[in-house]
Structures are given as structure tokens and as C-alpha cells.
């Protein structure tokens, strides 16, 4: 994809954008030596820009307008995907994709949040913020998968469950809660990958799994940095500080023991090279699948529940810190 024709680059990426533009120019001119020189500069700049990202920059990367979304990954990792629609009760929620397909030769049910690319699609997808019917569709398809012993892949990328009147009327809280309970009991492998924003309960509602992964530049948090800043300092503009306080990056979650693995992204982030990002994601999915597939369904369930049971930091009376 030509680098700069589309907008959406972040402020701190501007030097890179300039180089990418130059590269395009000299390539058009056929100046081979110059092309090589600029390519080298680009690689060096990427290393410089992206190797020391602050927590807030990670948040921006996770929300990057050019970042691949669920359907972009499905297109690249999955053969013969059939999207399935609707919760059989109220409607179909375009903010959640659900369907069946094969990754290499392995059958999968895939469920994921879906954001829109242009303004029209963003609105149609409600910025990736599901309504209850979205979560109910997701559960319907996951339950379907479990009954036919089909493993499940969940791709998580949402600012959160939608806070609106209809969502409340139709039981947003209940829909999320039910997914948490039911996903815990599904007797098939569930692989969860946070690919962008893991926005609180709206993310967790499709993120109860046996292996929980995050892409390198994904974030996952109980509250948005903006929301946290508004509560802590009554100032939503202090999101940058809040992002650090919340410990919401992939390395943070790995060290807190909440996720199992970080899925690498291409140099400079998934948005630089969708194909490569998809390749790395697919590799992680299959490796984890082959491991989980050796375990019987009942064992998966008891380990999954034990996993969540073990999360919590408190002290018992004897003052033994327990993790």
C-alpha cells in the first residue's frame, strides 16, 4: 500500500512519512542507488521511532487509523471464511464479526470486534463498540463451534461496549456477564489475541480463553486512559500520564501474569505491513492451537477456570502476599 496517500499517520511518525514520500518519488524516477539509500534510512528511523515507545504512544499505536482490523486479518489468515450474522433475537451487530473458516487446514470459529476504516464504515461499525446483540451473536457462534468440537479464535479490538440507551435497554451488562460465564465452560480450545484496543468489559466479553495473547502494540485496560485521567485528576487531557499509571501495554500485562505471550509485529508496527502482521499472527494462532489440541475439553475448562481464579493480588492474615 502506498505509504502516504492515505492519511492517519501519528504525529511522531511524520519524519517517517516524509521518507516514505521521498522513497516513492525516487522509485518513480528509477534512481536505484538513491532508493537503496532511503530504504536504509527508513529502516534506521523505524528502529529509532518504534523501539522506545512510551505507554501513551502504544495507546496511539493500538488505535492507529491504519492498523489492520479483524476482517483484514481474516482475509489474510483464513480460507473460505463464511461470516454468520445475527443473534436470532434482536438483530445483527456490525461491530462484531463472527464466522467459520479454516486457518491452513484447521477449522476455526472466529469472533472479533470490527472497526470501520472510512467515516461511513466507522459509523456503520459503531467504532467497534458492540451492542448486546453483538455479544449474543458471538456467544451463539462460539457455542455452535463448541458443539462441533471446533476451536475458537477471538480477535479483540474495541474502545469498549457501547454506552447508549438501546444497549442498556437490551441488557449490555447481562450480555457481557453471560459471555464470561459461558466462555469459561466451552470444551474447545479458545485462543484470544488482543490486536488493538482491549477496552475493559467490552473486550473481556470475548476474551475468556485458554491462551491470551497480545500483539506487541496492543493495549488492554479496565478503563481508558482518558477516563482514568478524568477520575484521578478531573482532567481528561492527562491521558498520557494515565496510560503509564494503568500499566496497559503488552509487556505490562505479561509481567502481571494476565497474558501468556506477546505476538510480534513487523518493524514499526502492524500498520506498516498488514501481510507480515497477519503472517506473524497466524503463526502464533497455530502454534498455540497445536499445543491446546493435545488437551481434552474438560481439562481445558478446568485449567481455564483455574487460570482466572489465580489472578488477584491480596494478603492473607498471616501477611503472606499471595499472587
Amino acid at each position: 500500500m502506498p505509504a502516504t496517500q492515505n492519511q492517519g499517520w501519528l504525529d511522531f511518525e511524520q519524519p517517517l512519512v516524509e521518507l516514505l514520500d521521498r522513497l516513492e518519488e525516487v522509485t518513480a524516477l528509477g534512481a536505484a542507488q538513491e532508493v537503496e539509500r532511503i530504504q536504509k534510512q527508513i529502516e534506521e528511523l523505524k528502529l529509532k521511532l518504534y523501539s522506545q515507545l512510551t505507554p501513551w504512544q502504544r495507546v496511539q499505536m493500538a488505535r492507529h487509523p491504519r492498523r489492520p482490523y479483524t476482517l483484514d486479518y481474516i482475509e489474510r489468515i483464513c480460507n473460505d471464511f463464511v461470516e454468520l450474522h445475527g443473534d436470532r433475537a434482536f438483530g445483527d451487530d456490525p461491530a462484531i464479526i463472527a464466522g467459520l473458516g479454516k486457518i491452513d487446514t484447521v477449522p476455526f470459529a472466529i469472533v472479533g470486534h470490527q472497526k470501520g476504516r472510512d467515516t461511513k464504515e466507522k459509523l456503520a461499525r459503531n467504532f467497534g463498540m458492540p451492542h448486546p446483540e453483538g455479544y449474543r451473536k458471538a456467544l451463539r457462534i462460539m457455542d455452535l463451534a463448541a458443539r462441533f468440537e471446533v476451536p475458537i479464535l477471538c480477535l479483540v479490538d474495541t474502545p469498549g461496549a457501547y454506552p447508549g440507551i438501546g444497549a442498556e435497554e437490551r441488557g449490555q451488562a447481562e450480555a457481557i456477564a453471560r459471555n464470561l460465564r459461558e466462555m469459561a465452560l466451552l470444551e474447545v480450545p479458545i485462543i484470544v489475541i488482543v490486536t488493538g484496543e482491549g477496552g475493559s468489559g467490552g473486550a473481556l466479553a470475548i476474551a475468556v480463553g485458554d491462551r491470551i495473547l497480545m500483539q506487541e502494540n496492543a493495549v488492554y485496560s479496565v478503563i481508558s486512559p482518558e477516563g482514568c485521567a478524568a477520575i484521578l485528576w478531573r482532567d481528561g487531557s492527562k491521558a498520557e500520564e494515565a496510560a503509564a499509571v494503568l500499566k496497559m501495554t503488552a509487556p505490562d500485562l505479561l509481567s502481571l501474569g494476565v497474558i501468556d505471550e506477546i505476538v510480534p509485529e513487523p518493524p514499526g508496527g502492524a500498520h506498516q505491513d498488514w501481510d507480515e502482521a497477519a503472517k506473524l499472527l497466524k503463526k502464533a494462532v497455530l502454534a498455540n492451537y497445536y499445543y491446546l489440541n493435545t488437551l481434552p475439553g474438560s481439562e481445558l475448562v478446568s485449567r481455564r477456570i483455574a487460570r482466572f481464579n489465580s489472578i488477584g493480588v491480596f494478603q492473607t492474615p498471616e501477611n503472606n502476599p499471595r499472587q
Partner: protein
Amino acid sequence: MPDSESRVKPADTLWQRCNGCGEIIYRKTLESNFHVCNRCGYHFRIGPEEYIRIILDENSWEELDADLIAGDPLRFPKYPEKLREARQKTGRNDAFSYGRGMCGRIPVVFGVMDFGFIGGSMGSVVGEKVARAIRLARKESRPLIIVATSGGARMQEGIISLMQMAKTSAELGLLRQARVPYIAIPVDPCTAGVMASFASLGDVIISEPNALLGFAGQRVIEDTIGEKLPPGFQRAEFMLRHGLVDVVVPRRNLKETVVRILSVLWYRHQSL
């Protein structure tokens, strides 16, 4: 965020102004009427002790794990101070208490939240104790009753507190498989992470008149949709109308309702 304006003040004053109708009520009268205004029916927020007294049989409460104490996994600004203040204010170590008890002579596991403790928020201690309560109910085959009031997950424990939603809900999955009944009683206010986990998963859900129940906070919704919310939005009666709670009863009928339901669901287990 926690607000305790409508909570009954344990204070020095003999009189209490009703938040519903403005009537000045003699405190003793209020107490003998379940902290409900006898003129307009306004339900004052009450604490764990009152719910224990109202729902459990006299002297049957036996609390467990009262001494679990929160850690500070994120080293979050001012969290230890906040915990210390909350402990001092409530005399409790965290926002959830549970234990064994009897309800209408039925042995139960009973749990109750304290909104006065950092807005009843769920961090590791609440999550762990709710999970232990559910497990105890399953192991001892006792119906589970939880009175839930909370502003949601505890921000200060970050992602760890979000995971408590999955932890408690997963345990409820096992309880359900074991066919032990769970009565959830979300009361004013109960929202966000707690409503989106164990408080919404009761086999039967009972609430009190006018209790605020829902997923998103009202200000968040108003900011998102850019308009004012209609009166009664997210109140217990709204939840009833939309099929999200089973029954809304005045506080004085809470216990009777619980007992009636358990005496049917638990009929085969009773040895009365």
C-alpha cells in the same frame, strides 16, 4: 464514582431528611421501617449490617475471610492511602463480606457489598471473596444470595480487577452446573463491572424500588449520545420493564421473597 449522599448517616442527629420527598423523618422511625420513607417509599441506601439483619435469620451470620487485604499490584498513585481511609471509614477490610447463614431456616451462603468502601469497587479481594463464596455454596450445596452494590471494577488495580469479572462469572458457571440456586440482589447503585458479571447472573434477580442498575454510567451515556436521559432510565422499574430483573420488591418484602423462591427451587433439599 462513589457518592454517599443518600446513605444513612450514622450520626448524631435524631432526624433525617428524605431524599425523595424532603420530609423530615425521626431516625428511629426510619430504622424500624427498613430505612424506607414511610411517606413516599424512598429507599435510603443501607450498609452490609442492615442487609444481614434484614435477610438472614437472627444470629445465624458467620462471616468468613474478613481479614483478606488488598495488595497494590500496579503501585497506583495514592491507592494504599485510599484503602486505609476506606478501612477506617467502614471498619471493614474491603468492599465485600460473605459467610454462612440461615435464611428462613434454609442454610445459605450470603454475601453483601459495601458501597461505602471505595464505591463498592471490585478489586482482587472482592473478586477472590465472591469466588470463594460461590465455591463454598457449591461445595456445601447451599443456595447463594448476594446483595450487590458497586460502581464497577476497581480502577486502582487496573487489568487485575477487570479479570475478577471473568473469575467470578466462571465460578458461577460451575455453580450453575452443580444446580445450586443463586439469587442476585443488585441494589442502588449497581453498575459497570459488577453488573456486567456476577450481579447479572442470578438464577433469579431481585431488586429494590428505584435502584439504579445498568452497565454504563449515566454521565458517560449522556456524553456519548449528546442528550439528556429520560427520567427513570436504568432504574429498577426500567430494568423490570425491559426484562432484565425478575422482581422489584420493597425492602420489607425482600427476605420473604427470597424465602418463597428458595422454598420452591430448594424444595427437594429442605429438611424442614
